[in-house]
């Protein structure tokens, strides 16, 4: 059917051209799609996504959360979403549109939506805003995030056990604290079981650029990495590892479809319960701006989709570590931690505070290179 669709489109556009009309340079990308018809005053909830929903990735997980909320609350809510919204001026326009259309609760799900969200929130004091992964809040703006690093540490243990070259590759989007926490936790986890493990990092300066993500993964593999992972949105890194016969730790979603042999496991995040709870609190009239940072104990981050070929004792070891984190018995950032420039970051037994984590701007020992300046 889709094939029919494009032939029709190509034919139609050619006809349009032949008639001497100019084709517009690009069709509008962002359209709000109402998902359920409105019924007696349900709460309208809007979602702003940075990338296409697709079938694996950051936005996929948020969209699953939206669907889960919709299923849990049924007729009490209607939801809409706008996908592929670029961070910047366009985002502000999209958020303002959603608020003007009567959405009373709006989730903006990318770091770069922080300032646009705050700006629109000032204009719509009766609309509640929830911004993911940011650090600025207001009377009607709450923030929520996941302790991604908890999953990263457990995945690091797995990678440390499985690597043969002792070189791990990490494709990063932007050098912001959230991503650095992941790189450092992954490194600490790997070196907790394999002190010789080293991590190479390549920044691609984009959350979603499949071509560049793939190039970066291939560059890391070329430099000896036999396991690669990524903090970017597409499945390109896992696919590259599969083609080169190397291993990968997927992020966001289970990507085994793109790398059935390569994917050792996936670090996944889950938002449905949080979205349901938040919408319910707005319905009950007791919503307050909060700063939520959920982790394994809240079921918001998991290591799952282990490859069937992994030795059982390795999987057991990873799951034991994850269980300890979940139970609150172990914190991934427990000293001694040294920076890769040799300075001490945490003394033995000292645990980094959330505030310290939020300001992370360095690599720990075991990561090669220096953090590039100015990520934001």
């Amino acid at each position, binding site marked *: 059917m*889709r094939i029919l*669709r*494009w032939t029709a*489109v*190509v034919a139609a*556009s*050619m006809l349009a*051209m*032949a008639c001497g009309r*100019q*084709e*517009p*340079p*690009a*069709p509008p*990308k962002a359209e709000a799609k109402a998902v359920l018809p409105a019924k007696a005053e349900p709460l309208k909830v809007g979602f702003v996504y940075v990338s*296409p929903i*697709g*079938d*694996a*990735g950051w936005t*996929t997980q948020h969209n699953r959360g939206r669907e889960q909320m919709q299923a849990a609350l049924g007729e009490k809510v209607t939801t809409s979403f706008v996908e*592929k919204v670029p961070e910047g001026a366009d985002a502000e326009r999209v958020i303002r549109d959603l608020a003007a259309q009567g959405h009373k609760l709006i989730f903006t799900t990318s770091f770069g939506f922080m300032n646009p969200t705050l700006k629109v929130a000032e204009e719509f004091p009766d609309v509640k805003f929830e911004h993911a992964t940011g650090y600025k809040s207001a009377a009607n703006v709450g923030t929520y995030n996941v302790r991604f690093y908890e999953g990263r540490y457990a995945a690091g243990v797995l990678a440390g056990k499985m690597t043969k070259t002792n070189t791990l*590759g990490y494709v990063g989007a932007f050098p912001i604290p959230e991503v650095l926490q992941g790189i450092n936790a992954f490194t600490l986890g790997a070196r907790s079981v394999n002190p010789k493990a080293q991590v*190479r*990092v*390549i*920044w691609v*300066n984009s959350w*979603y*650029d*499949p*071509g560049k993500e*793939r*190039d*970066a993964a*291939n*560059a*890391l*593999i*070329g*430099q*000896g990495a036999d396991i690669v992972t990524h903090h970017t949105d*597409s*499945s*390109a890194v896992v*696919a590259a590892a*599969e*083609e*080169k*016969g190397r291993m990968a730790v997927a992020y966001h979603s289970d990507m085994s*479809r*793109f790398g*059935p*042999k390569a994917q050792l496991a996936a670090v996944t995040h889950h938002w449905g319960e949080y979205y349901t709870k938040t919408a319910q609190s707005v319905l009950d009239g007791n919503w307050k701006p909060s700063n939520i940072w959920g982790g394994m104990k809240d079921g918001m981050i998991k290591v799952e989709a282990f490859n069937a070929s992994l030795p059982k004792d390795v999987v057991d070891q990873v799951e034991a570590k994850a269980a300890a984190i979940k139970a609150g018995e172990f914190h991934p950032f427990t000293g001694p931690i040294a920076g890769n420039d040799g300075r001490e970051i945490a003394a033995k037994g000292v645990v980094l505070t959330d505030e310290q984590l939020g300001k992370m701007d360095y690599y720990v020992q075991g990561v*090669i*290179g*220096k953090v*590039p*300046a100015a990520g934001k």
Partner: protein
Amino acid sequence: MDAAATLAAASIAAGTPMLLAAIGILVHERTGVVNLGVEGMMLAAAVVAFAVTHDSGSYALGFAAAMLAGVLLAAVFAFFALVLHANQYATGLAIALLGAGASAFIGLPYSGQGLPARGADGVALLRELPVIGPLLFGHHLMVYAALVLVLAVAWMLFRTRAGLVLRAVGESPESAHALGISVRGVRLAALLFGGACAGLAGAYLATVYTPLWAENMTAGRGWIALALVVFATWRPARVLVGAYLFGGVTMLQLYLQGIGVEAPSQLMSMAPYLATIVVLALISRNPRWIRLNMPASLGRPFNPNA
């Protein structure tokens, strides 16, 4: 050593889409036609290749459909440029815009989707050899096909009668016409060949190289290919050098990051464009040389009835 070999191998893979597109451009510019629509043709071909491969599961079918899409768009261009004698530059730009817009629209349901996993590329066993393994035997079939294509075009252009006719049409369409050669027929054939090449380039990008569909995924490679042909003074060997060089600098910036070299990544992203233009401008720094090699009728419509 191994790292250098993999860098070189990655550069070749990265340069292949530009090479494929550029060799097609070279052929039709040699007949005196400028088609600026290559970027749009690549995009249309990329989305068609991805859609067909995604829905049918067959890469071969995807490549075939992409070539067809490229040829179709080239035919549209040919209709305006050769039959209606429209301005070639304006028509080319319209094709570029059409391709970009239509591909974004067609690709809407495919963005963020993936293709079924593909095994390792190249020749089994041989690709495991140190150094020469990844460099010579570890590539996708299209990389070798592109090289063969360049050799074939170079041979055809300078060693066969067909090549002589093709160049004659570009140098002096009036003389060729007087000799009984169908100028517009030769130009049409060359344009369609260029369309098929742009189709291969787009298909390679969307189904092999990335392999994902994202809006505007060709990222200017079609424009680079157009510039490459000019700076390479319409010579196949220089196009080859330029395309691999562009691929090389693209990959080098990522390798440098992996080693831990500190440099602003924006500057690094600029480097491939800068390096390619500087090197090719140096190779062909003599403006007379460019003018001598440039097909004399480039961009001029030819009307046999005028």
